[in-house]
């Protein structure tokens, strides 16, 4: 039973000079209840924009096309007004850099409890009880509720933000680079915490990151994005051990491995400009496997190998067909 469906999702950003950057170029995705998905890709590939669009949190200079369906409800039917209905109660987000996601002049407990009262889920006393409940769930002592954000360490703040996000019992939890600003030890702890919570609470977890290790540890399914499109989507183990898409393969090869003595590789070239139309496959210019069809038609997601593992690549699909 899918809890979140993206159908042909497009996002454009208007620039001051009137041109548009096409940041998300037609993404289809289905996420089931309780599924843990990691969205992987380099900066600028559109992964953050994607999840912001799913909650309708785009800025005023953005335009969005396609459909986002959350538990049967069309989030983007009326733009901001319809999106507001699902926020926090059905879908919540943990933002990058929790330091700033919290209001610096209000106590943490108040910030966790307020949305519950606002959405009429609970009265004041019950909200307070639930606040202590979620603090415990994320492994924070009850005294944190009385504190201000600047009095907490980075890791504690990130946990507080997670507690805040699950307070209203959403069905989907988005996490945007939840561990990037933290030190390594805390990173692992937060990653584990997110997994644990997703399992315990039956949440769907959609985690956006460029940290391959984080995806390996905490997501059952990996989605690779490049230049606004999904290029590979499958079980994490399969995608990371036997990647099909040339981009995924090169990306994994470019990741330095500590205990292997090997020169650093990088992918030659740069990602395409998003304010110009792209003919054919977005990765073609840098792809070692490209052939004529790649510059003509954009490849569609099709079955590569294995169950539930799809790839958007002419070369792969051609080979699979034969």
């Amino acid at each position, binding site marked *: 039973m899918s809890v979140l469906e993206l159908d042909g999702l497009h996002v*454009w950003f208007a620039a001051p000079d009137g041109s548009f950057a*096409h940041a998300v170029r037609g993404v289809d995705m289905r996420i089931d209840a309780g599924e843990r998905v990691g969205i992987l890709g380099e900066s600028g590939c559109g992964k953050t924009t994607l999840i912001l669009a799913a909650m309708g949190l*785009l800025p*005023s*200079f953005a*335009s969005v*096309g396609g459909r986002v369906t959350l538990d049967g409800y069309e989030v983007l039917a009326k*733009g*901001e007004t319809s999106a507001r209905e699902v926020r926090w109660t059905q879908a919540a987000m943990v933002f990058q850099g929790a330091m700033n996601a919290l209001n610096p002049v209000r106590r943490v407990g108040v910030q966790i409890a307020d949305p519950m009262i606002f959405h009429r889920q609970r009265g004041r006393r019950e909200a307070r009880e639930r606040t202590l409940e979620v603090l415990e769930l994320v492994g924070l002592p009850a005294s944190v509720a009385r504190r201000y954000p600047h009095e907490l360490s980075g890791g504690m703040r990130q946990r507080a933000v997670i507690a805040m996000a699950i307070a209203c019992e959403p069905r989907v939890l988005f996490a945007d680079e939840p561990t990037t600003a933290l030190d390594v030890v805390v990173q692992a702890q937060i990653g584990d915490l997110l997994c644990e919570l997703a399992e315990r609470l039956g949440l769907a977890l959609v985690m956006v990151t460029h940290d391959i290790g984080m995806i390996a540890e905490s997501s059952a399914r990996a989605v690779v994005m490049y230049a606004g499109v999904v290029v590979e989507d499958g079980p994490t183990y399969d995608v990371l051990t036997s990647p099909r898409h040339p981009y995924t393969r090169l990306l994994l090869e470019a990741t330095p491995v500590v205990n292997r003595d090997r020169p650093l590789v990088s992918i030659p070239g740069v990602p395409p400009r998003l304010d110009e139309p792209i003919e054919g496959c977005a990765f073609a210019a840098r792809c070692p496997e490209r052939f004529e069809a790649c510059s003509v038609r954009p490849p*569609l997601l099709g079955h590569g190998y294995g169950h539930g593992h799809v790839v958007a690549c002419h070369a792969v699909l051609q080979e699979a067909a034969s």
Partner: protein
Amino acid sequence: MSLLHALARRPTMSVGISILIAFTLMAVFASGLEPYSPVAPSGPLFGAPSSAHWLGTDDAGVDMLSLIIAGSQNSMLVGFAAAIIAVLLGGALGIISGYKGGWSETGVVAVTDFFLVIPALPLMIVLAALFGQSIYQIVLIIGLLSWMSVTYVVRALVHTLRERGFVARARSLGAGDRYIIRHHILPHVAPLLVAQTVLTVAAAVFLEAALAFVGLGDPSRISWGTLIQTAFDRTAVSAGAWWAIVPPGVCIALVVLGCFLTGQAVEEAMNPRLGHAHVSHRSFSLRTPTKDDER
């Protein structure tokens, strides 16, 4: 220089600097531009604007346009001279206190805070009454009481510069304080000093007019401030002679506006505001993907 590029692209900068250049030129070439004498009568008393006298004449029959042009000289002179004094003093204090820290910083901060608390205009009035009202004294009085906000912002900037790596690196290479200040700090502070100078010019022009209004301007010179004061004293209002009142105020307002626009543009170019507002009266729009967009 990227800063100059950023500036050239801003319309507020072009408007601001054009106004300032226009008035500076007017001040510099004043004697050449005046159609009539700014001291001798050349028309009727409180004559209305006509083709002969574009801005009419004042209560003594002197052409208003010539008065305005003549006045620009002293107003702009006081503005720039006082601003330069204020910024040199304030900038030096800001750099030294921000860079050195410790006791010198505490001392400068205490002095700055103290002078911020003293009511400026009353003090200037008292000083002008005490020590004389010639234009040089007025420039000094205004300049020596306008340095505080410059010190404040320069000190803040030097603090952030100090945090950045290059100061520590230069030190570890053996560079002395004076070298570091000259080669690392000053280039970054310079644009801010320019912006502050321009903003202080606005304040100085305004203060000169204020001092003149209470009778403490240089009596031997014409400035926009003295023109407003004359209009007030000689009851231009009841005579209905709006042309004696309006032009000097408009000139001051334009110069202040020009300074404000320019100063703001420079400061914004130095610190571009990153990030956009997360809520606004408009929200994102819905758009149906066209055939070209579909895969």
